[in-house]
């Protein structure tokens, strides 16, 4: 399945792109996708998203097809999702 993943703020700086197309298998959860993307985009990417215990940082917003998702990395299922936004916080004025 094809998924568009977009990145905002410092995450976009870390990946060098604002969005990319990603192929995922059925049953993929956010934890698995972030691990795969972390290998591709490097340490800074993972550090912005995950805390020292490997949990999603409380200040990262996950948006699935335009709606904020809640729950932890393992509970967020990506089946039937077309558009995933990973948003690190911004506060520039």
């Amino acid at each position: 399945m094809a998924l568009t993943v977009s990145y905002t703020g410092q995450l976009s700086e870390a990946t060098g792109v604002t969005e990319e197309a990603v192929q995922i298998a059925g049953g993929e959860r956010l934890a698995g996708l972030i691990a795969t993307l972390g290998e591709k985009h490097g340490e800074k990417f993972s550090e912005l998203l995950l805390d020292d215990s490997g949990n999603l940082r409380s200040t990262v917003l996950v948006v699935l097809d335009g709606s904020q998702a809640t729950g932890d990395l393992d509970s967020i299922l990506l089946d039937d999702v077309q558009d995933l936004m990973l948003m690190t916080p911004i506060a520039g004025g």
Partner: protein
Amino acid sequence: MLSESDKATYEWQLDVPGFGESGQARLRQSTALVSRIGGLGGPVAFSLAAAGIGKLILAHAGDLRPDDLNRQILMRHEDLGKPRVESARKTLQSFNPDIEVEIVPENFSEENASRLVDKADIVFDCAPLFEERLLMNRECVRRRIPLIDCAMFSLEGRVIPIVPGQTPCLACLYPEIPPHWKRRFPVIGAVSALVAQIGALEGIKLLAGMDGVCLNQMIYIDASTMRTRKIDIVRRDDCAVCRGV
């Protein structure tokens, strides 16, 4: 009732559906606090002044520096080295002498939070630090005052209209200080101004009693492609700030 002078100045916007004389009158009776009047807060204040808000309170510490001038459009080159709030007040009062402008040469803090928010009907949050933003959020939720939280970074920006008790608050989305955010951020003034206009308009709609305020949503714009999205956001049941409000 609008004065003849107000009618003469604002007659073109009185024709806007849903705004009209009642919206203008409500705006005229309103006081807005704009916290920091840099790249975002400056254009917010400018548009509120143009729309005929009753009173602006501008809070921002420090003196004008050369590297402010790529985005801080209320400032004037001749005021380099002088307090930013004074330059801003001069610009706004020469643009619209009929509005009241109060200046506070301080940034939002624990010490002044209560005093600053006390006089406002709405707060526009345009500060570059989450410490200030979360403090402002806490104070606005405590007093049930709407907060328009505006932020940008590089070629993107977002606005979150917060109405305590009705929408998520800022702490629902960011329950702690994000550890990686840095004080210095990439910025082109036009992006700040673009985001500011979205924020100003949401505030004007809210104050004037117009429909269409993006409640329970974050308005996000990617100016690199000009794609705009409205993201549905949710309250956090265990939010330390707005739980029970």
